């Protein structure tokens, strides 16, 4: 295991219109590793992902503190020019809805070649050849013919393959995938996730996989970070997390899904809802919904403690 992680986020704090959204997130990803970032809507997982690429809408969003280090560089200190060289080249990103990320008036070939031309000093012919190679790699049938198609002529699964081809165009060392299969059917989801998994094994690319689907994380990720209320509340190797969840939120989340319960039985529900930014309670953010809270939980926010398996909880599951 290399000493230095590829990406290190430390104590990141982000606010939106003055309301804290991310309240001290620390994460590490090593080369070749797939890290799952899970949580429910509003927990801050997508904001964290966007901040890595400095794609936040600033303002109203603002990075208030902390650091993001990628391969020795401080991303928060880079100017726009340096960021543009990084984005799409060393760090690539794919989103949930490929239709809105692809330009409807350009062909698939144009859009992939453009990425290559932007970052590499090559001719159009070389860029086109690279685009065909990439379409082949992501499993698009008849890739040469697909070059001339427009996004609307492709299915949802094929569009996501095209997005992945674009993301891979310059052999990035980090892929940030924000809910890449949420809009897809399960049989297509399995194909896309298998593809991403194969690619990172082949190329040594690191993957930050953001999802709300615990099943997906369990099957593809090496490690998992669970977010709640703008913080990482638990982080562990995937097998360990699913076998022995320790934070009460992780424990409750795993217990509540239908797959963990005999059919027809009452599901152990988590009462209440996720508090929105600006309305987060004092102490541990989860304490009003927690069945195991103790006096201290409503007063102090616990620190994230532990090495391989870290938790932020005053009264963890044993």
């Amino acid at each position, binding site marked *: 295991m290399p000493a230095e992680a590829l990406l290190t986020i430390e104590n990141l704090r982000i606010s939106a219109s003055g309301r804290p959204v991310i309240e001290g997130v620390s994460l590490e990803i090593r080369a070749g590793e797939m890290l799952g970032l899970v949580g429910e809507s509003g927990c801050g997982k997508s904001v964290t992902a966007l901040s890595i690429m400095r794609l936040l809408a600033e303002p109203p969003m603002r990075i208030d503190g902390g650091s993001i280090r990628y391969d020795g560089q401080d991303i928060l200190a880079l100017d726009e020019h340096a960021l543009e060289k990084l984005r799409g080249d060393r760090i690539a990103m794919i989103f949930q809805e490929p239709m809105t990320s692809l330009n409807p008036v350009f062909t698939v070939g144009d859009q992939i070649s453009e990425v290559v031309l932007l970052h590499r000093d090559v001719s159009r012919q070389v860029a086109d050849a690279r685009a065909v190679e990439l379409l082949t790699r992501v499993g698009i049938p008849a890739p040469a013919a697909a070059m001339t198609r427009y996004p609307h002529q492709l299915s949802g*699964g094929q569009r996501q393959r095209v997005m992945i081809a674009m993301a891979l165009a310059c052999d990035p060392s980090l892929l940030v995938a924000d809910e890449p299969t949420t809009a897809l059917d*399960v049989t297509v989801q399995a194909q896309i996730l298998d593809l991403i998994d194969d690619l990172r094994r082949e190329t040594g690319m690191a993957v930050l996989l953001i999802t709300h689907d615990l*099943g997906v994380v369990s099957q593809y990720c090496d490690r998992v970070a669970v977010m709640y209320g703008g913080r990482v509340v638990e982080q562990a190797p995937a097998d360990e997390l699913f076998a022995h969840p320790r934070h009460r939120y992780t424990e409750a*989340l795993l217990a*509540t899904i*239908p797959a963990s319960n005999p*059919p027809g039985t009452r*599901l152990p*529900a988590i*009462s209440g809802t996720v508090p929105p930014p600006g309305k987060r309670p004092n102490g541990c953010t989860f304490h009003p919904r927690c069945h195991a809270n103790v006096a201290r939980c409503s007063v102090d926010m616990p620190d994230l403690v532990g090495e391989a398996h870290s938790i932020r909880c005053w009264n963890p599951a044993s």
Partner: protein
Amino acid sequence: MSLLELDNLSKTYPGGVRAVSEVSLSIEAGEVLGVVGESGCGKSTLGRTLLRLIEPSGGSIHFAGRDLTKLSRHDMKAVRRDLQVIFQDPFGSLNPRHTVGYIIAEPLVVHHVGDRQARAKRVAELLNIVGLPEDAASRYPHEFSGGQRQRIAIARALALEPKLLVADEAVSALDVSIQSQIINLIAELRQKMNLAILFISHDLSVIRHVSDRIAVMYLGRIVEIGPTETIMTAPKHPYTQALLSAVPRPGVARVDRVVLKGELPDPANPPAGCAFHTRCPKVMDICHTKRPVLAAPGGTLAGDVACHLYP
């Protein structure tokens, strides 16, 4: 006689897309039938067609003994008291300019049930049933979270004490911790009200949890139907098997999976023979030419599969 009986129900959209083809099934009073399949399989069209929100192109819908396809618009309106629907997006289906109280009372007004006072009482009762505070009646939909909005939609659907509820991806847009609350609520109400539910979802783990029986759809047709445990533990159709193995579950290793090749064919131009043959890992010669049918359309208690592997 069952509460609902569909016989060869079909819906062809202009342009020739056969969204629903010759679907026959029945639902008993108080029964939950899960309908599962991927986008484009016709499950939502099936739900809307049996409510005649979309006019069927063929076949019949017998509800409580009456053929709904033969009813006039006026008679249909009366029957709708007993047939209600909830959708995926609880925001899109609630008028933002009306109070929650008005939204829930609207079906009562439309069907001339009670006076103003009686309706207000019923709204309070319904809010209580779905676990919302009484003061919710004077507030507007945007003041509520997604889970709470789905509770409002459920309260409205139950206002007239329907016999059949069509739930179309009713929990799909909700977060995990909220999803379980709504699943519990639906299960509870079903018990209390002896409500039959056609529960449409792409999520097999949710379908398994709530359904007594499951129908699996592919390109407009039911390819397998049977009791929940039979479908989940001993699926017969290769498509059902693939669908089950594609669902990632926490703590279950990714081994021996059937990952299907390709995607759903164009519903406007479905493959000849068995519509699944282009993606089937067990395809045989006969599958290219002859369409397999269910042995007992309408369903038997033991389960039924439309596949040449089981002649």
